[in-house]
């Protein structure tokens, strides 16, 4: 860009704006990290930073099944829902990108509708349906709705992605003597993989974050996910406030995701914006 035209004053202006933007995004995160390291007595000192650091909140929550079990549920439900959603979305997206068939517009329209669907509208009827089917408070009871809400995202990102793949390469590989399977595994799959990874990341983030279904369709630790468990957290004894443990649990479920997001940031940004800009 116009690097030469940028004066020192402008540089300062941008630098300040950058610093402010970064600080504003970080403060709420640092605050909950700070709370999680405070002792129960120090929680109410309103200090932005703990005077004495303690791991007691962490050791407390990691000892109780109140937190460990939901953590396992979150990971299991998230992974299963993600794999199935990416698989089904890849099939549909391949058809949208490569094949000519009536009803394609309808599929895209439906995916778009579901992406914007108010989840609360589903809670009452799904609660009733899941109870009569025996899905209430089970893993599939959450996995199925998560797949349905992951699909639109997946179909969008993947069909945009699949259209960019030079499919002629497949033919070229076959001409060079590759079998269709070899052509697919050696040529097409490596090209499609980045799009599928991007989709998987975004779908998993959705499942990990989801809260309304998680508190509505579960009632015990057998299937409650981590964000839902947080909302039902109580202190280690009934006389201690749960502020410290909640903060520690919030940090535990957040930090890996943030590392993950930062590590895959290019993919995530590309995935989030692909559907929106190209249509």
């Amino acid at each position, binding site marked *: 860009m116009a690097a030469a035209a940028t004066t020192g004053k402008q540089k300062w202006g941008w630098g300040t704006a950058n610093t402010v933007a970064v600080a504003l*995004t970080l403060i709420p995160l640092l605050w909950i990290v700070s709370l999680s390291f405070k002792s129960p007595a120090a929680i109410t000192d309103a200090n932005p930073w703990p005077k004495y650091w303690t791991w007691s909140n962490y050791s407390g929550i990691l000892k109780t099944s109140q937190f460990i079990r939901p953590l396992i549920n979150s990971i299991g439900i998230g992974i299963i829902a993600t794999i199935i959603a990416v698989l089904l979305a890849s099939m*549909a997206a391949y058809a949208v990108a490569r094949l000519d068939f009536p009803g394609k517009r309808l599929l895209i329209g439906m995916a778009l509708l579901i992406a914007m669907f108010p989840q609360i509208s*589903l809670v*009452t009827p799904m609660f009733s349906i899941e109870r009569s089917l025996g899905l209430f408070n089970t893993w599939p009871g959450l996995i199925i709705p998560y797949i349905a809400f992951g699909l639109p995202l997946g179909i969008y990102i993947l069909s945009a992605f699949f259209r960019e793949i030079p499919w002629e390469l497949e033919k070229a590989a076959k001409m060079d003597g590759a079998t269709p399977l070899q052509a697919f595994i050696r040529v097409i799959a490596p090209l499609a993989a980045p799009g599928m990874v991007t989709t998987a990341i975004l779908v998993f983030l959705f499942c990990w974050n989801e809260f309304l279904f998680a508190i509505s369709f579960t009632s015990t630790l057998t299937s409650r996910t981590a964000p839902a468990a947080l909302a039902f957290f109580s202190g280690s004894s009934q006389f201690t406030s749960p*502020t410290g443990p909640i903060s520690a649990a919030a940090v535990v479920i957040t930090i890996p*995701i943030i590392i993950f*997001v930062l590590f895959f940031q290019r993919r995530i*940004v590309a995935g989030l914006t692909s559907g929106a800009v190209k249509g």
Partner: protein
Amino acid sequence: MSTQTQVVAGTAAQAPARGRRQLSEGARAERRLGWLLCAPAVIVMIAVTAYPVGYAIYLSLERYNLELPNAVKFIGLSNYAAVLTSPYWWHALSVTLIITVVSVAIELVLGMLLALLMHRTLFGRGTVRTAALIPYGIVTVAAAYSWQFAWTPSTGYLSALFNNSAPLSHTGTALAAIILAEVWKTTPFMALLLLAGLALVPEDLQKAAKVDGATAWQRFVRITLPLMKPAILVALLFRTLDAFRVFDNIYIMTGGGNGTGAVSQLGYDNLFNALNLGIGSAISILIFICVAIIAFLFIKGFGAAAPGSDLGRR
């Protein structure tokens, strides 16, 4: 970029067309394969959305309280009448609309500033972009707790900053705190969508206008904004409908108390506190209708730039 896309698109569109002329059998096989590949996704999406909505319509016409399972009875539109004449519904709806309009308006302005910052800044660009993804990545419930504790008197730094006040216990200030939490969490998403739109504004056009003596503000209003209109509309649509279903932040920060419950909270409370499936379903359907109206107004505003129209065309 876009020409390249068109070339690829062109070859993809030609191939099936040629196939059909020569061999209609092939075209039919292609259709079948297309439907077959889409079927699983379509079945799951219908099973989880269309079917429950249909069932909710049916439930909403019944008197159905889980505490009185033997008193289930068809009562027509009485549930709707009950909801629409209830001050709770209208209060929740106005709270939802206030949160939606105010937070989306603030997000649009801040998101645009953040997008311009990420687009124009020369050094530290990576840092800003990385930092902007943190609110997006953080679990909403975790962030909501961070805000709740921050506003709790004698615990939080924000409360201490405002004379140890308890803003979450008054409707107005609590709504402001909820809106702040929403804005913090979702502005980066808005900024990323707008940034993608900004990248499509040709640099030459900006330079030409600069040579012609246009000020930075004139360039922004006359060139950048009009060219970004599709990106802005898409971002606004996504965020408006997303804000309308606000739930996590309110549930954690106030539990819907002190007059801060949005429609999602009302629907949830009706199911789990009042155990009333009939009324709960009527609320579900009314929320669905509200969202449909908002989406319809936006899509009408889009015209040909509606999201998905490009994908569907081929």
